[in-house]
């Protein structure tokens, strides 16, 4: 404190100089940040404003004029069977892929963590799908799941079971796509859980054992699970958001078919906006998509704020 008062006088005197240097610092900061700021406005802010605005118009690419139609697009959306189907399919897909890939990711991480043998081999094996080109691997899955010449059905026939037309029938297509989705994301969640697990201090387990948590299952619920709280919230949010954004497999394998059974949100937006060129209508769909993402993010923030404090 004494030091502070001692040097406070000269600083008072040199105030104008400090101001000049502060102004200089601010100017340099502006210059360093300006390119990023301009690009954010150009490629994020302006397009978002534009997409919200376009959602209130009947703009179609190729026509030079358009007019504002208020909430007409949204009214049409409510009655649009394709869109409703698409929302429902996306929900079902997410409801399968997110929990399954989180639970499997956690299980694999726990198994790998508790087993010394072949640790890096297993990690690589489960992670490989994440590092692979999804469009390419989807093509491989298409072959694997081929109704007549695919290995999966050959295997089923071998043990006397009839193989379904995995990607070709309306009843199974969404589940087949979900399976591919799970296969693709488990490794990613596993890596995050592994990182979370190694961050847990060893002595917590010892302490829990002294406190009477004798079985490893007890210790799991007493120590591991709570300590993984922040990781789990993060993994859950990312898993849900990525599942809602499913597109590649649908575009590559099914084009939304058969009979709209695998029509998902981004694919519907893509079709309306870039194939039928109904930009206004597709913009309204995009706003719904964006709203879903925003709600998801806020849910995460609130959860992180409330639950994950120790």
């Amino acid at each position, binding site marked *: 404190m004494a030091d502070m008062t001692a040097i406070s006088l000269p600083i008072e005197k040199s105030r104008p100089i400090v101001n000049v240097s502060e102004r200089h*610092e*601010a100017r340099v900061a*502006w210059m*360093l*940040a300006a390119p*990023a*700021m301009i690009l*954010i406005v*150009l*490629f*994020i802010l*302006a*397009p*978002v404003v*534009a*997409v919200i605005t376009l959602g209130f118009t009947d703009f179609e*690419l190729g026509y030079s004029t358009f007019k504002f139609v208020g909430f007409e697009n949204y009214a049409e959306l409510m009655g649009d069977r394709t869109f409703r189907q698409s929302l429902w399919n996306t929900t079902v897909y997410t409801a399968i892929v997110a929990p399954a890939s989180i639970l499997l990711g956690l299980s*694999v991480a726990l*198994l790998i963590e508790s*087993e010394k*043998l072949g640790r890096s*081999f*297993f990690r*690589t*094996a489960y*992670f*490989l799908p*994440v*590092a*692979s*080109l*999804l469009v*390419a691997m989807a*093509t*491989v*899955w298409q072959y694997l799941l*081929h109704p007549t*010449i695919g*290995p999966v059905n*050959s295997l089923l026939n071998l043990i006397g079971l009839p193989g379904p037309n995995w990607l070709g029938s309306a009843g199974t297509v969404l589940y087949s796509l979900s399976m591919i989705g799970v*296969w693709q994301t*488990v*490794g*990613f969640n596993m*890596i*995050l859980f592994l990182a979370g697990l190694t961050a847990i201090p060893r002595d917590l387990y010892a302490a829990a054992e002294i406190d009477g948590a004798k079985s490893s299952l007890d210790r799991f619920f007493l120590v591991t699970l709570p300590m993984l709280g922040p990781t789990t919230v993060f993994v859950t949010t*990312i898993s849900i958001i990525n599942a809602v*954004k499913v*597109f*590649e497999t649908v*575009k*590559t394998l099914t084009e939304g078919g058969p009979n709209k059974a695998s029509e998902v949100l*981004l694919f519907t937006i*893509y079709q309306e906006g870039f194939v039928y060129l109904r*930009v206004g209508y597709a913009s309204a769909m*995009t706003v719904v*998509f*964006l709203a879903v*993402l*925003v709600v998801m993010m806020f849910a995460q923030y609130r959860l992180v704020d409330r639950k994950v404090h120790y």
Partner: protein
Amino acid sequence: MTETFSFGRAFRLTLLSLGALIFLAPYIFMISTAGKGQSEIFTSSLSLIPTQFFYLENFAKAFGRVSMGQLLWNGVIVCGLIFVIQVIIAIPCAYAMAKLKFGAARLLMALVMLGLLVPIHATSLPLYVAFDSAALLNSYTALVAPFSISVFAIFLFLQFFRAMPDDLIHAARLDGMSELGIVMRVIVPNAWPAITAFAIFSVVAHWNDLYWPLIVVSNQAYATPPLGLLFFRAAEAGDDYGALMAATLIITLPLVAAFLLAQKRFVEGITMTGLKG
């Protein structure tokens, strides 16, 4: 005691191996089928080693229909450009936000947080209209420009720079370095872990992205690997799975090879960035 222990271990190892087998099965079949002739694919799908090797024929077909070299080259160019521009734009901005005082810092932070919420799928409609009216469809510009700004890069570097000691920067200032000089000669050399992590995030994301290239590119000359594979599938009449698997093998290999070579960096990168955030 030891009895149950080894039983538990055996159970664990069996589970892990079974799972690994399922996860690797697509790769095994991809490699196997890429070497099979058309007739063998139709008759015996479960035998893994081709009776007659058709690798050369299938790879020749894959290289013949679509120019694979061009596809991979486009992928390298597009991902390389995107990554370099993102870093050049994001680092100075993150440095300013982390270490300099200026009025717009809070506004900028709000913009970054907003940007984190918005994926390309949400901005693609207006961007497409804009690129279309500027006659920029089917160009590297269209493929790269929307990703020139990565708010995620800013966010990541910002956190990394905040943890850097201020003394480092003060010392450089006393040496008479300009702020830009500090960024280039003090910040960047100390930020390699963050830059590597971001490189992995960025390259994986854009190498795999199908949505935006599909929208702006219809000319095969500008196709990125995923889009090129779609073109290849469309050009492939019927079910020539041998050629198709050869093509997928060629296209999957670069990133998988990179991953196998730099596995540790990949894992660190993902833990640091939470990939695809």
